């Protein structure tokens, strides 16, 4: 038998032994040294142990019985002090062992930055079970705090685990964004946001000055003077190969023990594997290449031919709820092109880096459903030229011309474990099971599995799974294209406008392959809206892509005349305003003056050429457009409110006016009407508006998604706000979410029915930061659109277009 000595019982050497015992059970007499007082366990599963999701016993790879069955002499808890290559012996603390072949698998040591106080008790690395147990113990004290130094993979897993154990956790990272080795800035930002949502504090560009404490760690002090209380400090800033034995034995060294492709060191009888080796200038830290090395080393020892080759690596973070993936190389370069998809509303970011016709890198955050497919493209250096345009949407959209035309084939080809619903983590297999169990409609599948129940964007995929499984038994609701100019649906177009950063109509027509030169009356208003909603600062509104009413800022009537309706903020007016309206009606011969349901006055029957002049008159009296003609904010209806009504609560009328002054001028997918009532008697009829607020003694009940047109529907309660400020922020965020996500010409209630009120709540009620961001984006848009179009068009030059271009009746006939 070959006397094989192994120094280090880690994951790499453990895998070598498995291969050897499987291929040649009787060939090796193995002695296994391990400095830790235990055998091989799955080190990468320490995170679940830390978080309490698994116990140590569950992550043991080789137990005593396994070692016994394979005749392994275990010398656990014993350090190896040297290797005598001349005598071919390994020197342990408790004696020597002779070897024929030796494997050095000493792994790595955590890197400890020598800050003042780094050696205080309570400062641990995150490397082995002892560290993990120290952290678990620290978390046992109620209200204890932890500081994790290092915002890389390991540090974040430690932070998440400690947080799950109830500690106050702050992560310090010295670079500008987390996981800077694997992620780019945007993905790092999203990760930070998600961690903060989980109650983990993150300080980037943190310069640690010292770790302080009296006999034990008590706090971490930063250069800027910040002092963070800490019952435990986890230093997770990286690893260094533990290669001292190799150095002492005179093996050829680089930054670690140098090996060839057979994992042989400069001594032909000594091999090395795992994190203590250097191959072709590279060091190793992730498990995938270690397993490759283990396989090669086992074959070498068995006298078979094999060679280790480096492969592309990918990273996933094992923190529940933080869905990120990174693979390949994503540095920017001259020859490189990026395809970026961002969905800020859902916290999704995907970036593909392309060099020539190859995908060389991928970073995704928030939706990593297609990560394995992308990783495959990187590893195999697949030519992606043909699918470049739709590459970022993943395999469901690919498969050459045929599958692009037949997305069903692509869905049929998905494996059972392919994730269909990213929000709820529902795989194709789950959906198939529910279909087999009798769920034969989208709603039934949604109810049983939650698939497509959140953001709803995977509804189409779920339907395709249904169609494939049930065949004719499933009536596919036809997802209609926007119009005959394109095969794309509204949802596709909205997504592509964001993903491809299309900022002009020609860009949309060109990049999305419009079949017509410049669209039609169906798609043009929709695209115009999507562009101005998504890129308020970049895109210039195109009046020629608007329906006549929005272009002429008045409602065309059946006889070709127009109606003019000035704004009355919250339905409050003054004698002066009323006089000006009466004067204008007289002056322009307005045949009908109508009080509207939206609490204002409509002047019907104004001739087009008179529009600029009547606007000018109304402007002079301090009035602005009521936007009664827009897919935009119409009115905010109010009751008389607490100033007069004996039942009124809050300043309901004032709130209505404030909301109208904030929201006016904004364009929305369809019209938006608000109501604010001062008490539940609801005189402002707020409960059938797109947004309706009922003021009560304790605050503001904010309802959304009401309707009183073709459909009649009561609002649903979005949230209850306790302050006016909060109520206003919720309303703005709702309107902005609607602006960013809805299909053009879907009223709010239709849109909410599609995405679900739960999802809307998650976005703007549960997630205060997202709410604030929506409000910010709305304000950016309003910096462009919160102005009176009448004043603009009443100016002499724009007013010209309301008049004849030429009057040939005045020309003399020749």
């Amino acid at each position, binding site marked *: 038998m070959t006397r094989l000595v192994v120094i280090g019982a880690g994951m790499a050497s453990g895998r070598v032994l498995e291969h050897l015992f499987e291929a040649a059970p009787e060939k090796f007499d193995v002695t296994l040294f391990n400095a830790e007082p235990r055998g091989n366990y799955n080190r990468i599963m320490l995170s679940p142990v830390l978080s309490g999701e698994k116990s140590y016993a569950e992550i043991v790879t080789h137990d005593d019985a396994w070692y016994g069955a394979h005749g392994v002499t275990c010398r656990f808890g014993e350090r190896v002090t040297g290797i005598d290559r001349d005598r071919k012996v390994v020197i342990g603390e408790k004696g020597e062992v002779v070897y024929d072949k030796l494997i050095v698998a000493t792994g790595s040591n955590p890197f400890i930055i020598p800050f003042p106080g780094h050696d205080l008790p309570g400062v641990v690395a995150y490397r082995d079970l002892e560290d993990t147990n120290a952290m678990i113990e620290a978390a046992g004290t109620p209200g204890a705090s932890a500081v994790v130094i290092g915002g890389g993979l390991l540090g974040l897993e430690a932070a998440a685990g400690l947080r799950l154990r109830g500690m106050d956790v702050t992560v310090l990272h010295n670079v500008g964004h987390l996981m800077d080795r694997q992620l780019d800035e945007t993905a790092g930002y999203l990760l930070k946001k998600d961690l903060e949502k989980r109650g983990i504090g993150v300080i980037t560009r943190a310069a640690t000055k010292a770790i302080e404490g009296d006999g034990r760690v008590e706090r971490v002090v930063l250069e800027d003077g910040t002092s963070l209380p800490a019952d435990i400090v986890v230093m997770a800033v990286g690893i260094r190969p533990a290669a001292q034995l190799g150095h002492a034995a005179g093996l050829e060294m680089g930054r670690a023990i140098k090996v060839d492709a057979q994992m042989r060191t400069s001594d032909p009888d000594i091999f090395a594997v795992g994190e203590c080796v250097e191959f072709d200038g590279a060091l190793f830290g992730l498990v995938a290449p270690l397993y490759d090395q283990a396989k090669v080393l086992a074959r070498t020892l068995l006298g078979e031919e094999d060679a280790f080759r480096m492969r592309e690596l990918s990273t996933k973070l094992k923190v529940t709820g933080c869905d990120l993936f990174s693979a390949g190389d994503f540095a920017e370069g001259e020859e490189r092109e990026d395809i970026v998809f961002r969905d800020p509303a859902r916290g999704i970011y995907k970036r593909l880096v392309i060099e020539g016709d190859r995908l060389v890198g991928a970073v995704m955050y928030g939706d990593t459903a297609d990560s394995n497919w992308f990783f495959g493209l990187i590893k195999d250096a697949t030519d992606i030229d043909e699918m470049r345009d739709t590459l970022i949407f993943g395999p469901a959209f690919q498969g050459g011309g045929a599958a692009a035309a037949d997305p069903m084939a692509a869905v049929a080809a998905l494996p059972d474990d392919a994730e269909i619903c990213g929000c709820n983590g529902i795989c194709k297999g789950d959906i198939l099971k529910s279909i087999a169990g009798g769920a034969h409609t989208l709603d039934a599948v949604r109810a049983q599995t939650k698939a497509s129940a959140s953001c709803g964007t995977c509804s189409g995929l779920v339907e395709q799974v249904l169609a494939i499984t049930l065949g004719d038994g499933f009536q596919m609701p036809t997802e209609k294209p926007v119009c005959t100019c394109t095969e794309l649906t509204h949802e596709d177009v909205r997504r592509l406008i964001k993903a491809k950063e299309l900022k002009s109509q020609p860009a949309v027509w060109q990049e999305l392959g419009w079949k017509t030169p410049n669209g039609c009356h169906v798609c043009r208003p929709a695209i115009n809206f999507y562009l101005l909603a998504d890129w308020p600062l970049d895109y210039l509104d195109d009046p020629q892509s608007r329906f006549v009413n929005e272009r002429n800022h008045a409602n065309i009537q059946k006889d070709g005349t127009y109606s003019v309706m000035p704004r009355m903020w919250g339905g409050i007016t003054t004698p002066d305003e009323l006089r000006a309206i009466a004067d204008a009606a007289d002056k322009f011969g307005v045949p009908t003056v109508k009080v509207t349901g939206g609490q204002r006055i409509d002047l019907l029957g104004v001739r087009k050429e008179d529009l600029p002049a009547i606007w000018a008159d109304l402007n002079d009296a301090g009035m602005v457009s009521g936007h009664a003609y827009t897919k935009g904010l119409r009115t905010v209806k109010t009751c008389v409110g607490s100033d007069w009504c004996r039942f009124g609560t809050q300043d309901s009328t004032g709130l209505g006016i404030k909301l109208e002054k904030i929201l006016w001028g904004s364009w929305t997918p369809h019209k938006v009407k608000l109501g604010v009532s001062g008490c539940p008697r609801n005189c402002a009829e707020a409960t059938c508006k797109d947004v309706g607020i009922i003021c009560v003694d304790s605050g503001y009940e904010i309802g959304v998604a009401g309707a009183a047109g073709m459909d009649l529907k009561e609002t649903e309660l979005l949230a209850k706000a306790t302050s006016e400020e909060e109520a206003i922020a919720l309303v703005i965020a709702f309107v902005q979410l609607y602006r960013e996500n809805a299909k053009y010409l879907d009223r709010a209630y239709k849109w909410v029915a599609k995405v679900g009120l739960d999802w809307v709540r998650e976005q703007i009620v549960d997630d205060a930061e997202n709410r604030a961001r929506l409000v910010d984006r709305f304000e950016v848009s309003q910096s462009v659109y919160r102005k009176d179009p009448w004043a603009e068009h009443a100016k002499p030059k724009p007013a010209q277009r309301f008049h004849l271009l030429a009057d*040939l009746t005045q020309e003399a006939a020749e």
Partner: protein
Amino acid sequence: MSWIDIGHIDDIPLRGARLVKTHMGCLAVFRTGEAEVFAASDSCPHRGGPLSEGIVHDRKVTCPLHNMVFSLETGEAQGADEGRIETFAARVEQGRILLDGTLIAARGAA
């Protein structure tokens, strides 16, 4: 054919229209391209909708009232709809919009 200069091409927004009053009534001049115009009746044969207020796309216009689409080249209604609008000769020369001069002379005939 005599041509009448009725204005500069930039007096009409791209994919927009303006009206020209004639003795035969108002006709619409549509700008379909950087230097391309068409002249046609302003009135939709369906319910009299003002075609000059419609959305102009390709060499077509959609009536703002009920979405009938007309070719500006032939005047024919597109798709399933039936109907036709009268078209008139128009062109652009050195940035000026020129209309068929007989539109003025039509007074005599009217």
